[in-house]
């Protein structure tokens, strides 16, 4: 990885006043002399401020703020895949394709993205609205397959529901987060399958879908 593989980006970067105050609060969490520990939250903050990607100026800015050699910040930023060193679309569609999601049909999800947006993993639409990437386990296997998008999880997807999800975004609306197949959180589909007898014994209604 070297800087020549990423776009130059702006020449300078600075936190907004709000973010600067937040950054200072983050730095204050660490003991004196250990400010460098704040590098990851600060990079995240910078990324959020800068259209979800980190230009070199932002990394240098964070390095200066924490008194670190710039290369130490480049090392961190290039190691973690959740820092984007290249510009990404407005909606950053992270499709989980690790084994559980894959077994539950993540290929379908990716195919739906391709159908709807015309882009494969790692690509950005021409209008800069969408970037689709494959990610490793998103940690929501119980609702596989999942997409992590703009800090929200969309779960229990299949081809059509992915397309519907993307349609909502294209219309400029915010889709309902969580399972897209009517499940409540991670409760079983079609009603409870366990503890039914106990509920009956106690004279209560078993938990149901609706």
């Amino acid at each position, binding site marked *: *990885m*070297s*800087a*020549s593989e990423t776009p130059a980006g702006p020449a300078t970067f600075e936190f907004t006043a709000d973010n600067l105050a937040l950054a200072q609060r983050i730095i204050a969490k660490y003991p004196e002399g250990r400010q460098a520990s704040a590098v990851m939250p600060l990079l995240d903050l910078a990324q959020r401020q800068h259209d979800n990607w980190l230009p*070199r100026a932002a990394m240098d800015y964070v390095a200066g703020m924490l008194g670190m*050699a*710039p*290369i*130490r910040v*480049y*090392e961190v930023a*290039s*190691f*973690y*895949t959740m820092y984007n060193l290249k510009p990404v679309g407005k909606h950053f569609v992270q499709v989980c394709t690790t084994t559980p999601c894959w077994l539950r049909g993540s290929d379908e999800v990716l195919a739906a993205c391709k159908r709807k947006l015309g882009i494969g993993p790692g690509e950005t639409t021409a209008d800069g609205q969408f970037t689709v990437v494959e990610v490793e386990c998103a940690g929501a296997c119980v609702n596989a397959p999942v997409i992590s998008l703009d800090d929200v999880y969309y779960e229990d997807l299949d081809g059509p529901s992915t397309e519907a999800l993307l349609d909502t975004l294209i219309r400029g609306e915010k889709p309902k987060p969580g399972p897209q197949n009517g499940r409540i959180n991670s409760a079983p589909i079609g009603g409870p399958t366990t503890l039914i007898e106990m509920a009956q014994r106690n004279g209560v209604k078993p938990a149901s879908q609706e």
Partner: protein
Amino acid sequence: MPKLTIDGIELEVAPGTSVLQACEQLGIEVPRFCYHEKLSVPANCRMCLVEMEKAPKPIASCAMPCGEGMVIKTDTETVHKARKGVMEFLLINHPLDCPICDQGGECDLQDQAVGYGFDRGRYGEEKRAVKDKNLGPLIKTIMTRCIHCTRCIRFSDEIAGVSVMGATGRGEHMEIGTYVEAAVSSEMSGNLVDVCPVGALTSKPYAFTARPWELRKTESVDVLDAVGSNIRIDTRGGEVLRILPRLNEAVNEEWISDKTRYAHDGLKRQRLDRPYIRENGKLRAASWEEALALAATKLKGSAPEKIAAIAGDLADAESLLALKDLLGGMGVASLESRQDGSAIDATSRAGYIFNSTIAGIEQADHVFLIGTNPRWEGALVNARIRKRYLQGGLTVTVLGPRVDLTFPIEHLGNDATLLNAIADGSHPYAETLKAAKKPLLILGSGALARPDGAAVWAAARAVAEACGLVREDWNGFNVLHRAASRVGALDLGFLPAKGGRDLAGILDGARKGEVEVVYLLGADEIEAQHFGRAFVIYQGHHGDRGAHRADLILPGAAYTEKNATYVNTEGRAQHTRQATFPVGEAREDWKIIRALSGALGKPLPYDTLQQLRKRLADANPAFAQIDRVTPAAWGAFGTAGAVAAAPFTLPVENFYMTDAISRASATMAECTEAFVSPAVAERTGTHG
């Protein structure tokens, strides 16, 4: 003091010793890539695995401290199998390009693959390839060969003090580099080539030049600064192909500066290969007989008070003594070895050497730098201060221009009169100095070359005395010289005798015609116009400033071409050894002077180097103590007086070109272009 058993041998080691170091004490070889004695221990290559009793799996011996009752086995089947496994993984992505690799023949990976490698690979996938990086004019990179030991990262971080190297990306995509394309701007960068255990970082000027087994290795000493770094000169035929550091814990540990390492290509350019005589304004080649006869005529033809000699920065002690004996015997009093105009003299040896010794820096808890940039005037001294700084508890205060020294400093400003104020206790910094347990003062040679140099020298002595830097068990007064010849010349008293002229006097006399003959022993730092109409005899090895002005040139030998004695800034006498022969008709310097004495009809009483060295030891016992520093008795020196308010200036403007050899070096010119010129342009705003 834990006791442990290694391969059935019981031994007791100091607490904190690692298993690998304990093995080394027993002479048991443990293969390693990432571990390096002078660097921190990351334990990431896993090559040094050994078996430890009661441990479920092999342990990395470099990172395992010795414990009481440990039982270590280094030569079992498990150990071999584990190391073979590690080696197989290392070789998965390593290219099989040893035949075209410059590291071939001295490669840790190649050597250890012989012991632990397998004769065929089981890896059928595609190997990974990594883009090469541009690290500047000194270091060539072939990054596909990198095995990610991270020694280079740790070296630049810890020793060189410039955090530019790093590992970016992760896993399969991890790469060592600088991320942003940048040359490694450090005066120590050449050592990256040495620490790299494979051929990923190799020497750019040396690329595709020779194989290690073709080279003749000569152990010698560097003379391009006054540190006296121990070096190994590798030659083939009559050519110096490369210079490597040689371990000397007291001086340079195992590092050398880039100038020491790379300036040797200057030995092939601009050389004076035969005597020359200036006729009608032009130099013509001459024979030795002719040249020596002319020199003798000129020296005989002038009265002793009209003759002067100036010794340069690369002059060895043998030739200095021979010249002093020769001219002194004729009654010449105007001998000068301080061509920078320094006020330093030989009144007290403790006044002109680095009393604490370079290794002694590690005991100091406070360093006071006066008018010096040790990074450029003695790179290894600066590296030693940084080493001490990293151990913790060291503070550094600077009086003089502010420069980046790779460690934090307290800046007192650049008002030279503060020296007087500190000495009389009226400046609060005096209390800091007094409070320090082992304070150390380093006086730059540039500070002594000011017009009020004698007063600066005396003021520094007053500071040392007033603030308790000089004690029974500790002498914290140090002068950091830049010229390899300086301490030797002072030890021999190559200075104006009674009634003699000093540098200013000689130049003034030459301008006025009062000095008719000037003998330059490799003196190249004086502008030609200063010599007026005097007849200039230049003895030296490069066609630099001195030779350009000379009326008679006697070709001498460079430091790689003679057995000579140099005294470093600590007062440590060391010998250079002849690695190649002088070019053409050039001769060893003391022999030229001996021959000249014959032509003058006053032969010097030594015919062999042994006799001359005996005479050296008689002249000053320091020359009998090779590679040792004898503590010097404290005495008075300098001329007490008010120090002028003028700010200190740094004497070295370009680290890469400070003498006739480095000025002739193409590599040093490239370094100047890459590292010094951009900085100067930035400062003066003439860039672009």
